């Protein structure tokens, strides 16, 4: 799960990680009043969306006086911000973060996250701050310091020193930096974060270390133990069809530009089915894993969500019935199809337990269902649907 910068900074404050003074604003008037409270200039006006690259897209502005705060707030609120992470359709800005500007001397990069390969928690830091870290990693990997922490040992003073000295910090900054990284480690572990990233972390001319930006992602499997984080969820940032699917425990992801819907049991087979659709010359409109249970209700809601997309010209159902029996699933599909009213061709490939009974149920249903005998057959049939 992702949250906004202003929410990440709330958690930073809670853990004693220094952040610029400032507050969120939902209207131009609020932005002006936050600016007035700050009492200094310049003031930074930042668009709050769940995507990086906001500055380049025109979503971050430096205001030198009150009028400029108003001008920028008017301009950014309601704009459709397009960045390399939003996709070409962009995201509408509905909130701002208004903060004091700082006398920046140097920009650093700092992040902490669980590392899947080593099963450790890793800090990554670099003197090349404020840049795209992927690019730094690709072009100049020697500029990135990595410190791995065994979660059974925990974060120790020497870990902090490796980071601080690795970043060539001035001696007078080391104590506050070390306190800050210990707090970030605790935040990452306490809140089951999958990423805590500060880019840039700034060193100011008056010798302070401050998180100028903040990004936190959370492990979806651990949200159940963080009620405060669950409240940070912003439905404006999610696709409405995905929000709808999540209500029925359907694992659904919308694919922009697709024309063939699909419904599959199992995440691996679902991804492979999307690939098959593309290899057949069409484009998958979604990812949908109905899981091992695939109840009639889930199939029905799956259909409804897929067919709500007007670009969908056909649907491919690919089920490997293991414990889930094909005859039961076929009955579910037929019932759902009757209830939802399907107006596009549906190709069904079924395999596994009780497959013959399942196929018979589909054929006798009188619905516009095309049965496929295997994966290749399904691919050809769905390709024909896409062309027709």
């Amino acid at each position, binding site marked *: 799960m992702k949250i906004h910068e202003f929410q990440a900074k709330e958690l930073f404050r809670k853990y004693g990680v220094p952040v610029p003074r400032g507050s969120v604003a939902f209207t131009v008037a609020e932005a002006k009043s936050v600016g007035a409270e700050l009492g200094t200039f310049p003031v930074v006006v930042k668009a709050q969306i769940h995507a990086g690259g906001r500055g380049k897209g025109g979503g971050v502005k430096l205001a030198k006086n009150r009028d400029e705060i108003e001008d920028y707030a008017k301009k950014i609120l309601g704009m459709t911000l397009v960045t390399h992470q939003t996709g070409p359709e962009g995201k509408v800005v509905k909130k701002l973060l208004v903060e004091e500007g700082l006398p920046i001397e140097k920009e650093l990069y700092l992040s902490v996250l669980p590392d899947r390969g080593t099963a450790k928690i890793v800090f990554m830091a670099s003197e090349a701050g404020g840049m795209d870290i992927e690019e730094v990693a690709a072009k100049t990997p020697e500029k990135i310091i990595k410190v791995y922490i065994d*979660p059974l040992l925990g974060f120790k003073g020497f870990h902090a020193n490796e980071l601080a000295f690795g970043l060539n910090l001035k001696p007078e900054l080391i104590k506050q930096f070390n306190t800050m990284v210990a707090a970030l480690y605790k935040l990452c572990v306490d809140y089951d974060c999958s990423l805590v990233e500060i880019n840039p972390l700034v060193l100011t001319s008056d010798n302070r270390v401050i998180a100028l930006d903040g990004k936190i992602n959370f492990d979806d499997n651990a949200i159940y133990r963080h009620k405060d984080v669950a409240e940070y969820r912003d439905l404006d940032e999610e696709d409405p069809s995905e929000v709808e699917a999540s209500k029925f425990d359907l694992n659904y992801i919308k694919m922009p530009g697709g024309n063939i819907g699909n419904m599959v049991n199992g995440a691996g087979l679902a991804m*492979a089915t999307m690939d098959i659709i593309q290899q057949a010359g069409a484009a998958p409109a979604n990812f949908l894993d109905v899981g091992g249970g695939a109840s009639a209700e889930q199939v029905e809601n799956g259909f409804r969500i897929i067919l709500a997309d007007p670009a969908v010209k056909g649907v491919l159902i690919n089920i490997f019935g293991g414990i889930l029996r094909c005859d039961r699933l076929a009955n579910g599909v037929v019932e759902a199809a009757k209830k939802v009213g399907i107006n596009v061709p549906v190709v069904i490939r079924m395999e596994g337990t009780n497959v013959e009974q399942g196929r018979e149920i589909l054929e006798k249903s009188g619905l516009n269902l095309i049965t496929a005998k295997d994966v290749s057959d399904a691919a050809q049939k769905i390709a024909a649907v896409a062309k027709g």
Partner: protein
Amino acid sequence: MSIWVDKNTRLMVQGITGREGQFHTMNCKAYGTNVVAGVTPGKGGQNVEGIPVFNTVAKAVKETGANAAMVFVPPPFCADAILESIEAGIPIIVAITEGIPVMDMLKVKNYLKTSKSRLIGPNCPGIITPGQCKIGIQPGHIHTPGPVGIVSRSGTLTYEAVHQIGSMGIGQSTVIGIGGDPVNGTNFIDCLSAFQADPQTKAIIMVGEIGGSAEEDAADFVKANVTKPVIGFIAGLTAPPGRRMGHAGAIISGSSGTAQGKIKAMQAAGITVVENLGEMGRIAKEAFAKVI
């Protein structure tokens, strides 16, 4: 021969009294697995269709000599259950549970390294040696004993692989689902190494997906250490970056973890990569013709 589980396996089920736990325990038993014990704290002394239930793993092991565990405990308590089996010295622990927080698994994984236990999963279909022992939620009847070892990150894609080679008349030595989570107990290399050493296994299929670098690491291992023919498949060519595709571990981060990168690494290691899922059976038959 086979790897890790066979007719001598004595299975204990953690979470045996839950709905899923009970259902799949009975399926494993019906397949022929020797299920000797169950564990549910607070339900010791009861039995599930004749299988004795204990309060703790230590007690179950002491009373029944269980040497493998299947874990169906819900996510908030699952890491604890796995640690309990590690502490009791169980050699093979198979965790089916989906949804264990990564921070919990980091601790389990690091503790596991100090022990002699092997953890398979979590978030996996399990392990099966056809005709001898099934630990997990797989449909047992699609499997047949034979010469091909299969290792996969996905459940239904594993069944697909078993089915497709089965329809070509090719059976399996052992089939392992290592799970779709980012941090798991057993990886591709562990399985490839065991298949390479197993005399029954003549050829290997590895099924991967987007996210992480386990397939790339496995490809390097194959190049250096595996003499048996290997075919591979990677799901997620069309997956968009930054989105979690069902499995917690199936996510492309920036430019790393892509299907294209994995396929390239596997091909460079001499692995025959199946690019179209429907072709897996046919390609396996061709690629394995010399050895089986």
